[in-house]
C-alpha cells in the first residue's frame, strides 16, 4: 500500500485494482492459523478444565484463576519473573552500551571483536545455559580460576544461593543477548551527525560530557528498543534458567514459564494455559506504560 505514489484522493482508489484484497489471503491464513487461533485458544482453554486425565473438556469459569491466585506459588513466580526481567534489562543494556562505546570506531580489530561478541546471540540458549551450568558448578571452571588466582581452594556455589543466584542467571541471560544490544547501540551511534559531535568538541566537551550530554540523549530511540525488548523478552525467559538452575535453589529462580512447564507436565493443561494467559496479560499491561515512558524520553529532544 505504501508503494502507491499518487495520493489517494476522492472516491476512486486506484490501488485497489492492482492490489486486490484476496492477495492478503495466504499471509492472513498463516497469521490466523499460527498466531491468531493459538492466542485465542490460550484465552478459551484458561476457562476450561482441560487435563490429561479425562477426554472431555468442560467449561470451568474462573475456577483456574481462583485456585492459582489462592495459593501463593503463582504470585511468587510472577514476582521472580519481574525481578529477573528488570535485572536482565539492566545488565543487557549496560553490557551492550559499554561494548558499543568501546567498539564504536570502525577499525579492523573492532569489527572482528564485534563479531565475537555477537556469537552468543546466535548460539542455542540451552547450550549457553548448560555451558554456564558447568562453569559455575562448585567444582567448575570459574571457581578453579578464582582458586588459581587467590591461591586457595574456592567452592562458591554460584547457582546454589537463594539470594544471589537470580542475579547470576540474569547476567548469563544478559551475556547471551548483549551482542544484539551492542549492534543496535552501534547503529544508534552511527546516526549521530559528525557536525553535532564536532560542535561539542569545539565547545571543549570531554569524553564524559560528550557521552552524557550528546551521545546518550541522541541514543534514546535505541534505548527504547533495547530496554523494551530485553525487559519484555526476558519475561518470557525459560531456556537459560531451565538449563542452569531448573528454577532452584529453593524456587528462587522459578520463572513463570518454568512453573507453566511444570504444571503442564503434571497434566494440568488448563491451569498451565491459565498461567500463560496471566503471563501474556502481565507482559501486555507492562509493555504499554514502559514503551510510552521510553517514547516520551525521545520526544523531549
Amino acid at each position, binding site marked *: 500500500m505504501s508503494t502507491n505514489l499518487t495520493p489517494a484522493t476522492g472516491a476512486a482508489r486506484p490501488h485497489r485494482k492492482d492490489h486486490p484484497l484476496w492477495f492478503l489471503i495466504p499471509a492472513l491464513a498463516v497469521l490466523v492459523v499460527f498466531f491468531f487461533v493459538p492466542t485465542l485458544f490460550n484465552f478459551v482453554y484458561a476457562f476450561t478444565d482441560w487435563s490429561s486425565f479425562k477426554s472431555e473438556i468442560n467449561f470451568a469459569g474462573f475456577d483456574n484463576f481462583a485456585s492459582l491466585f489462592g495459593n501463593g506459588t503463582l504470585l511468587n513466580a510472577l514476582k521472580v519473573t519481574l525481578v529477573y526481567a528488570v535485572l536482565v534489562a539492566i545488565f543487557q543494556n549496560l553490557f551492550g552500551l559499554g561494548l558499543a562505546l568501546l567498539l564504536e570506531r570502525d577499525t579492523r580489530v573492532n569489527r572482528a571483536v564485534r563479531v565475537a561478541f555477537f556469537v552468543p546471540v546466535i548460539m542455542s540458549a540451552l547450550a549457553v545455559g548448560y555451558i554456564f551450568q558447568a562453569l559455575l558448578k562448585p567444582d567448575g571452571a570459574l571457581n578453579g580460576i578464582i582458586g588459581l588466582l587467590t591461591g586457595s581452594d574456592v567452592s562458591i556455589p554460584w547457582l546454589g544461593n537463594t539470594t544471589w543466584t537470580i542475579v547470576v542467571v540474569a547476567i548469563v541471560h544478559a551475556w547471551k543477548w548483549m551482542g544484539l544490544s551492542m549492534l543496535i547501540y552501534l547503529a544508534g551511534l552511527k546516526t549521530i551527525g559528525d557536525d553535532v559531535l564536532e560542535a561539542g568538541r569545539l565547545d571543549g566537551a570531554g569524553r564524559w560530557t560528550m557521552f552524557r550530554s550528546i551521545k546518550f540523549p541522541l541514543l534514546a530511540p535505541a534505548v527504547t528498543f533495547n530496554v523494551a525488548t530485553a525487559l519484555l523478552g526476558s519475561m518470557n525467559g525459560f531456556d537459560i534458567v531451565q538449563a542452569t538452575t531448573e528454577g*532452584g535453589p*529453593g524456587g528462587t529462580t522459578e520463572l513463570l514459564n518454568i512453573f507453566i512447564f511444570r504444571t503442564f507436565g*503434571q497434566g494440568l493443561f488448563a491451569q498451565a494455559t491459565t498461567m500463560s494467559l496471566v503471563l501474556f496479560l502481565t507482559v501486555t499491561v507492562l509493555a504499554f506504560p514502559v514503551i510510552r515512558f521510553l517514547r516520551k524520553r525521545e520526544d523531549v529532544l
Partner: protein
Amino acid sequence: MKKPFRYTLALAAAGAMALTACADPGADSGSGGPVDWPAQDADLSGTTLTIWAAQNSNTVPDSVIAGFEELTGAEVEVVTVPDPYEQGVQTKVATGDKPDLAFWQPTASQLTALNASQNLQPLDDAPWLDAYEPELRDITGILDGTRYATLITTPAVQGVYYNKEVFAANGITEAPADWGAFVELARDLKADGVTPFHEMGADRWGTQWWVQVQLADAAADGLWDRVNAAEEEFTDPAIQGAIDTYNDLIEEGLFNEDIKTATFEDQGAALLAGDAAMVVQVNSFFGQLQSLADTDELNEKIGFFPIAPSGNVGTFIPDQSNALVAFRTGDADQESAARQLLSYWMGEGYQGFVDAQSTVSLQSGVDTPADVPDALLSVSESLGGSVGSMQASAIANPDLYIYLADMIQGTKTPAEVAEATQSQFNELAKAQGAEGF
C-alpha cells in the same frame, strides 16, 4: 480498506474456530476389552508396530524385537521420546498421537495421567500372568481393578545403599533392623568422624525417598487410600511427621556438608569412595554406580537393605523402564499384534530378554542370569514384602521432591512443604474428578 480487512479476519478466525473446536484432544471411542490373545508365532508379515521409549529405555527391547521380527515377520520400530519422557508422551497422547506400545510407569497415578480407561488396552486375561512369581503378579499395573500395564523388570525399591567397607571399618557387621537402630547407627558413625548419609539437594529428585521410606508402615495400613479419599492430608501427623524427621536429621548434621549443592553424580561417587556411609535411593542410583565401577568391585563394596520404621520393609516404586502399556489405537489388527508382541516378550522371549539385560527375572520358570550384581539381588528379594510408594499407590504424584529440596535450601519450612504438596495434590485430584476434592 480497514473494514473489509477486519471482516475477513473475523471470518477466517470464526472458520478456524469452528474447525478446531470440534476436535477434542484425547477423545477416543472406547471399545470392549480384547478377548483373543494371538499365538506368539502367528504370522504378522507387513505389520509394523511402534514402541515409544525414553532415552534410558530405548535399547531395552532390542533382543526381544530381533526375536519377534524373525519369528513373525513383523517390523518393530522403537521411537525415542525425549526427556522429560512422561511429559512428552502425555502431550502427544493428549493431541491424539499414539504408538502401539510404550514404556510407562505402571502406577495408579501415571496410568490415570494417561487416561488408561480410554487410551489403553486392558490386559486382564493375558496368558503370561501365571508365569510371574506369585507375590509379584498383582504388585502394580492395575487401576480400578483393571490391568493396563505389564511388568517386564523388577520395579525399583527405595532403600538404603551402603558402603560395605565403611561399615566393616567401623565394626558394623549387621544391617540395622529398624528405623531406631538405623538412626542410632548413623549417630555412631558420625561420632567416629564418618559422614553417615548423603543427599543430593541440587538435583532434588532423591529427596522424597527419605520421607517415603518412613511411611512404609502407614502405607501398609492404607495411608494412600485415605489420602486418595481426602480423609487424610500431607499436613496430618503421619506425613508431616516424616517430613519433620527428615528435616531434623539434616539439622542434626547427619548428612554431607554440601547437601545444598550436591548432585546425583556426586552421590554415587561419594558412596563408592566411602565419603558417605549410606544413601537412601532407588535402583537408578545403582545404575549410576554401575557406570563408575564393574560388577566385582560393586559386589565387594556396595550393599543394600530396605528400611522402614518397624523393620526391613522396602517401598517399591516402579518406573517407566519397568513396564509396558498397549494402546487402543482403534485398529483391531494393530492392537492384536501389540498383544502378540507382549505375549512373546513375557513368553518365549523372556529368558533371552533377562539374559540380554542382565536383570532379575520376574518369572519362576526363567532363571536370573549369573552376572546380576548382589545389591540388585537384595533389591529384588526385598520386593516381595515391600509396600507401595506414593507414586505406586496415590492417585496423583505431586512434586513433593521439589518442596523438600526447597526445605533443604531453606526457602520452605517443613510445615510449608506439607501444605504445598497437599495443595498440589488437591489440584491434581480435582482435575481427575476424584471424589472429595
